[in-house]
Structures are given as structure tokens and as C-alpha cells.
């Protein structure tokens, strides 16, 4: 038996997950960037002259951080969930279940790799849309903080979905009926102040709203709610979901039975 280095298992799994999405970067990075660009071109063409959400901020500029964050969240989710469901269905999940990886190493590697993909896509969307519309970045630290919290949260949710789903159909349902509605109804395309009071109240129960709103604060210095409240809510959700996910992994739920 060869002598092993501590945490090498984690770093290998992390590297493998990065390599996996990088090998299909047309699908995992360029495609979502192009989709976000199309959203921007269409919405800005239709609504630019009719909507102003924040004083002095063009609608197209308002849209850019929302689109970047939406892409970041969706791709963070897609990374861990699709990797796990593919591995489960093809059976190659045993290659990471047979080695002496702890549930924490397993969790950290999948979440961090998802965060990397989410951040790369989010940055790609921001970079490409900046060519068409200049967007100020007033507080880069708030931008980075919400990008990391959001990608971590969705990467974790992707692990839960990937473990829970037994077939692609179930994962697609999770994505289409939970993730996409929550991101679309979180204020990507509008400020919740433009909604009727009832829907404003409902939006406050959507954790995605706080991620988008806090992220946008980093660009314009303006937000619908305090960024500190958003950090507390998103951070709280991330901690709670991480704890629950680690507990599932420790029990071997749907993986070791």
C-alpha cells in the first residue's frame, strides 16, 4: 500500500470536476454566456426606452448584473447536479465512493467546482455584455461576496438534487419547476418595487431575490433591501443547506445502499 497525502483526495476530486466541465466548455461556459447576451439584446431593445428602475441607471445596465447572477446561479446548480446524476446513472460514481474520501471532502470538492463554473460563467456574461453597455462596479467586495455565497448555495442545492434524483427527468423537474422560476421571479429583470404589494411580500420569501439584489448593490450602490440583510439571509440559507447536505452524505443517502 502506498503512502497517501492528507486532503489529496479532495484536491483531486475538485480538479476532476473542473476538468470535466472544462472539457465541454462550449456547453458549460460559452452557451450560457451567449444565452444571457441574447436576453440582454432582446430585453434592452424592447424595454430600454420604457423602463427605468433606479434613477440615473439605464434599464440595460440594470439588467446586466441580474443576468450575470442568474447565469452564475443556474450554472452552479447545473454543475454539481449534472455531474452527480450522470455518475449515478452510468455507474461511475463508485470511483469516488470506493476511495477513502470523507463526506466533507466530497461535499467541498463538488461545491467549490460548481462555484468556479458559476463564477466563470457570471464573469463571462459580465465581460461580454460590458462591450455593449458600460456598467459601474461600485463595491467589488459586495459583488464577490454575493457571487461566492450564491454559487456555493446553488452548488450545494445541486448536490442535493443530484443525489435525490434517480433519473434525468426528475432532475429536469427540479431545475424547471424550482430553480428557474425562483431565479426568474427574483428580480433579474425588474425591481420588486415595481410589483404590487402582495407580490413584493412574496418576493421576500425567495432567497434568490436577496442574492440578485445584493449582487446588484455591488454594482450600483442601490438595492431594494439592505445588502447586510441579504448577506445574513443568503449566508444563513447556505449554512443550513450545507449542514443538511453533509448530514445526507454522511448517512450515504441514495449513494451507499
Amino acid at each position: 500500500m502506498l503512502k497517501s497525502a492528507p486532503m489529496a483526495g479532495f484536491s483531486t476530486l475538485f480538479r476532476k470536476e473542473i476538468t470535466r466541465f472544462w472539457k465541454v466548455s462550449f456547453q458549460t461556459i460559452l452557451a450560457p454566456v451567449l444565452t444571457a447576451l441574447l436576453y440582454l439584446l432582446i430585453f434592452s431593445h424592447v424595454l430600454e426606452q420604457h423602463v427605468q428602475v433606479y434613477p440615473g441607471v439605464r434599464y440595460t445596465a440594470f439588467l446586466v448584473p441580474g443576468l450575470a447572477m442568474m447565469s452564475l446561479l443556474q450554472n452552479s446548480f447545473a454543475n454539481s447536479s449534472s455531474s452527480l446524476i450522470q455518475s449515478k446513472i452510468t455507474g461511475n460514481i463508485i470511483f469516488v465512493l470506493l476511495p477513502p474520501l470523507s463526506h466533507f471532502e466530497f461535499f467541498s470538492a463538488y461545491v467549490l467546482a460548481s462555484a468556479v463554473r458559476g463564477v466563470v460563467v457570471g464573469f463571462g456574461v459580465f465581460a461580454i455584455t460590458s462591450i455593449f453597455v458600460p456598467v459601474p462596479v461600485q463595491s467589488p467586495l459586495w459583488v464577490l461576496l454575493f457571487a461566492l455565497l450564491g454559487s456555493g448555495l446553488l452548488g450545494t442545492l445541486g448536490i442535493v438534487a443530484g443525489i435525490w434524483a434517480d433519473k434525468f427527468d426528475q432532475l429536469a423537474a427540479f431545475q424547471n419547476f424550482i430553480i428557474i422560476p425562483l431565479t426568474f421571479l427574483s428580480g433579474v429583470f425588474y425591481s420588486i418595487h415595481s410589483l404590487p404589494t402582495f407580490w413584493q411580500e412574496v418576493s421576500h420569501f425567495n432567497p434568490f431575490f436577496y442574492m440578485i439584489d445584493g449582487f446588484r448593490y455591488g454594482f450600483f450602490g442601490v438595492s431594494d433591501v439592505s445588502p447586510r440583510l441579504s448577506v445574513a439571509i443568503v449566508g444563513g440559507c447556505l449554512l443550513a443547506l450545507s449542514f443538511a447536505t453533509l448530514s445526507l452524505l454522511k448517512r450515504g443517502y441514495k449513494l451507499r445502499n
Partner: protein
Amino acid sequence: MQHAIEIRGVSKAYGNVRALADIDLDIPEGEFFALLGPNGAGKTTLISILAGLARADAGRLKVMGHDVATDYRGARRSLGVVPQELVFDPFFTVRETLQFQSGYFGLGRNDAWIDEVMARLDLTNRADFNMRALSGGMKRRVLVAQALVHKPPVIILDEPTAGVDVELRQGLWQFIRQLNGDGHTIVLTTHYLDEAEALCSRVGMLKQGKLVALDSTHNLLKGYSGAQLRLRLAHGVLPEPLMPLVAAVPTNGEYLLALRDYAEVETVLGVLRKNGLVVVFMELEQPDLEEVFVEIMRRD
């Protein structure tokens, strides 16, 4: 002496279906052990529990002294498993697959051993091929290489030659024999009982989750089925004292006699000589593991 594998009172059920019932089994270090049984007997379940892919409802299992539940890191480092299904990750090449597998075990710089394993499994010229581009036999070799990448002292092969051509099968067994010769403990499950008979020094047989036989291959062959003597006489019929030994109705003038052991050959020949009968053809058929297996499965 420490056992490579120690299994005590292990039970497992899937809903109402009992997969394993109170299994006790020790496999000493360096042994080449066959775990046999019909489909659904519990072989893969037992292997899965040993490898940490499933959890036992009751009982305790150790690999090289490491408890698979409380010291899972030690147990998994000591174990290499070649799975039954032909699984692979379609994103990677053969070399990447082995490097990642090595890294999962905490072995970052392991290229020398990876190269050696690939060479011994005739994979070197496929090292940079994507896994999807390999034939079934080549994929099977990569699975074996993945199980060996961390040099585990205990290697479990779950039907490694299912659907594999003769050339690969022979090459694979030569390599596995070599590993066993180097001190690795080998546990083999297979439906090719001739392989188990040729390779394994001890055999355990599972049926409906129970261990129904556990003995050396030699003792099983000796104890569960005597030899059969096929003979043809120049003239005359078989003397009356030998008629109870007849195992089958004579065809083409040939008698098939069931013997309890080889010593009975001399008794048979003595009776024939005493009666003045001449033997023109004689063949001693030895029992094989397949016959023993069928008999045990029928009996229990």
C-alpha cells in the same frame, strides 16, 4: 496471523428480501479465495458492504484489521475492487482516469506505478485514448488498473472475466496470479467455475444469503463428489457385486460406475479379475467444482 478479511454476523435485507443472513467468514492474508453462488445469492451485496458501497444491517467487517464502518479510511485504502459492471467516465482518457483514481486515494505523484500497471495490463499504447474509444475488453483492463492504482493488499474481483475474450482472460489471470504470488490477497467471484477451481485455494458458496459451504478447493472436490469410472468389457456382463455402483444405464456396452473414492478402483478391478472379465476400455472421470457446486446448491 491477521486476517485480510474478517466478517462476523453480517446480515442485510432490502425491504422484505433477505440478501445476507448472519455471515461469518475469515480470509487469511495471501489467500486466493473464491466466493461462489448463483445470481442473487448475495455475493455482490457482501462485496459492496466490504467496499463501503452499502451498509450492513448487523455485524462487523474488517479489511486488514480496519473496521469498514469505524475506520473506513484504513479499510478502503487496503482494498481494491474490480466491479462487475463495465463502468467508466466518458470525459477522460485512460491515463487521466488512473491519475484521478490514484489522487482520490491521496497519491498525487504515482506515475511510475501507473505506467507499470498499464504496461502489465497491455494498456500503454491506449494511455491517451478516451475511455469511450476502448473495446469492452480494454475497458475491463482499465477497471482492473483502477483497482490496483493504490497497491492495495486485498483485491476483490467481481466477475472480472464476464464477456471477456480468451486472450485477455489468460493475460488477466497471469497478472492476478503474479499479484497473489507477491502477497496480495485475492477474492474472486465468477460463474466460470473452472477458473475458480484452477486459481483458488479455498472456496465459499453462498445461497440465498447464507454461506452453505466453506472449505479448501481440494476438500470440496474430494468430499462432495466421488470419481466416476467408465469401462467397457471384452465380453460378459458386469458381475453382481458391482451392480450397486452403476450410475447410468449402460450405453454402447459402456458402464459408468460412481466411486466414493479413488481406492475403490482397485476393488472394482479385483472383482472383474476374479470373474475372469477383460477390460478393453477404461476412463477415470474426476469430479470438478461445477459438479460440486450443483450438488451443494441442490442439497441446501
